[in-house]
């Protein structure tokens, strides 16, 4: 009886074992792919990658083949670079004022007039204009940018406009002849006048050198100083003041001062203009906004990145910058490293 029970249990166990093995065994896998099969797939993948590259180049990425091959490559579109340059240059010049202060112009001379039979000096005049301040605003036009080899040539039209200023006009008249002294006497008049600047167009030409700044592309300005000549333009009020100075004198004196021709003298001395030098340092280096980092913080670990520039290529479509990085960390774990597996 006992032997039968054991036989039955043994049978049951055998059946359960077969059932469990069938249910729980790892599925039978087909044979793994052969090396030839894997090579065939890699070749297919590589052919598709080459076709993709050709499609990208055909779509306009002409300079991709010339880009410096490096650990990190950055390609900045020339269209974007042009947009940055255009906006920076026009933005800066759109906020530029030229201010002349405490300028003095002086003119003196004699006035001669026919007295009975011959010409005689009837008086000396001294005309002083003190320009307390005259200010002009620059208005930039649309710059022309031409990308060359490692440079961008820039031509920027600039319009000098919207000037205004205040000045003091001082006239001294010293009558010389007896008759002149009798009919006019001496005059010493000071009047406040206003004016503006004569609008004028200028053209600024220079370039930005496209340079490798170690971790980014930098555009370095190369512009000469720009000489601007500001011509002060007396306002209607100023001419009215001059007219008034003459007219408010006695008739004889008015005639003498008319001989001075104050308006012409004033226009003459102001018409020579004033030189202003716009220094080249008005242009600043422009760092393009994508560059290589010098360090990284990863989970509290500071990684130092040693950047070695690998090249800079200025193409029609992109500015390419390449750099190789060496990574080091102060707390890098040491120990044996597993061999790298073959890469699919």
């Amino acid at each position, binding site marked *: 009886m006992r032997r039968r029970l054991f036989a039955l249990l043994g049978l049951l166990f055998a059946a359960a074992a077969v059932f469990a093995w069938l249910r729980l065994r790892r599925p039978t896998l087909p044979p793994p792919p052969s090396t030839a099969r894997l090579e065939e797939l890699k070749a297919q993948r590589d052919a598709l990658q080459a076709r*993709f590259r050709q499609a990208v180049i055909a779509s306009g990425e002409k300079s991709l083949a010339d880009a410096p091959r490096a650990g990190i490559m950055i*390609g900045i*579109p020339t269209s974007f670079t042009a947009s940055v340059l255009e906006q920076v240059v026009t933005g800066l010049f759109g906020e530029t004022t030229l201010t002349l202060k405490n300028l003095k112009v002086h003119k003196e001379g004699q006035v001669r007039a026919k007295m009975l039979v011959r010409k005689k000096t009837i008086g000396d005049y001294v005309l002083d204009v003190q320009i307390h301040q005259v200010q002009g605003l620059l208005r930039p036009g649309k710059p022309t940018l031409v990308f060359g080899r490692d440079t961008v040539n820039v031509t920027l039209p600039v319009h000098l406009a919207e000037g205004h200023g205040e000045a003091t006009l001082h006239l001294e008249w010293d009558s010389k002849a007896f008759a002149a002294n009798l009919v006019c006497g001496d005059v010493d008049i000071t009047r406040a006048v206003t004016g503006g600047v004569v609008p004028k167009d200028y053209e600024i030409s220079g370039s930005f050198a496209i340079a490798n700044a170690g971790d980014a592309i930098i555009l370095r300005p190369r512009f000469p100083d720009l000489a601007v000549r500001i011509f002060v333009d007396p306002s209607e009020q100023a001419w009215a003041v001059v007219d008034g100075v003459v007219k408010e004198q006695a008739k004889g004196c008015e005639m003498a001062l008319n001989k001075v021709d104050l308006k012409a003298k004033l226009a003459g001395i102001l018409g020579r203009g004033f030189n202003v030098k716009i220094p080249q340092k008005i242009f*600043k280096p422009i760092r393009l906004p994508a560059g290589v980092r010098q360090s990284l913080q990863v989970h509290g670990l500071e990684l130092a990145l040693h950047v070695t520039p690998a090249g800079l290529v200025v193409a029609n479509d992109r500015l390419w910058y390449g750099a190789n990085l060496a990574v080091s960390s102060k707390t890098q774990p040491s120990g044996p490293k*597993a061999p790298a597996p073959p890469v699919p």
Partner: protein
Amino acid sequence: MRLPAFAVGALVLLPACQHREPPEAARARATEAFLGTQIADLQKLVSKAESGQLSSQDRIAIGLSEETAKALIGASLPPEQVIGGRIRLTFESVQPIFRGNNAALLFQATAHGVRVPSATARLELGGGLTNFRIEKGTLTSTVQLAHFKVLDTSLGEIAGDVLEGLVRDNLAALGERIPALEMPVHLEQSIAIAGLDAGVVVTKPGVLPLEMTLAEVLPVGERLWVLLEVKAGPWQKAAAAEKSP
């Protein structure tokens, strides 16, 4: 009645009475599957590029080589991780694979028993870079582990299966401990230009705001390409100009 206990134990152990597939065979199988995925993804990408739907020209292109990514991720691999209180897992190396429009990562790791340090196993963990984004001027992506394989073990088949189970249950948590891959590039959000106060000539400083958004991620040709949509402007004037010496 010792027989039933023996019988139950034997039944439990039975499924393990099959040899683990050799690592080379497992790797060949994984490689075949991965190449199949790459080919399928590339076919889509090629058709997108050939039909003119892939725009790149006005975008900033950043390309990171597999080697540089390997150095970056390798230098920041997490220290030893304890899984389930039983296994110490150490990441030994990483191999980024930027091919066939797939940004994959293959980690090599070793596992030791917490109580029996002499019991070791070698694992291969696979995953990829996902969730690419720009955060505060940094281009970053998340490492996500997807699968793993115990390559060889001194633990025996049964303990190897236990290890597989432990790693499987903790795969997501393990992935979270691997730092995100930060691309080693700085992306400025504006270009600030100083003004000038040279007495006669005064120029106000200004700022050119920049807007960068992620447009495409293309892991092809052993390089991870990231294309950024970028807009500049309009120019904004700032407060004061620098005093010229």
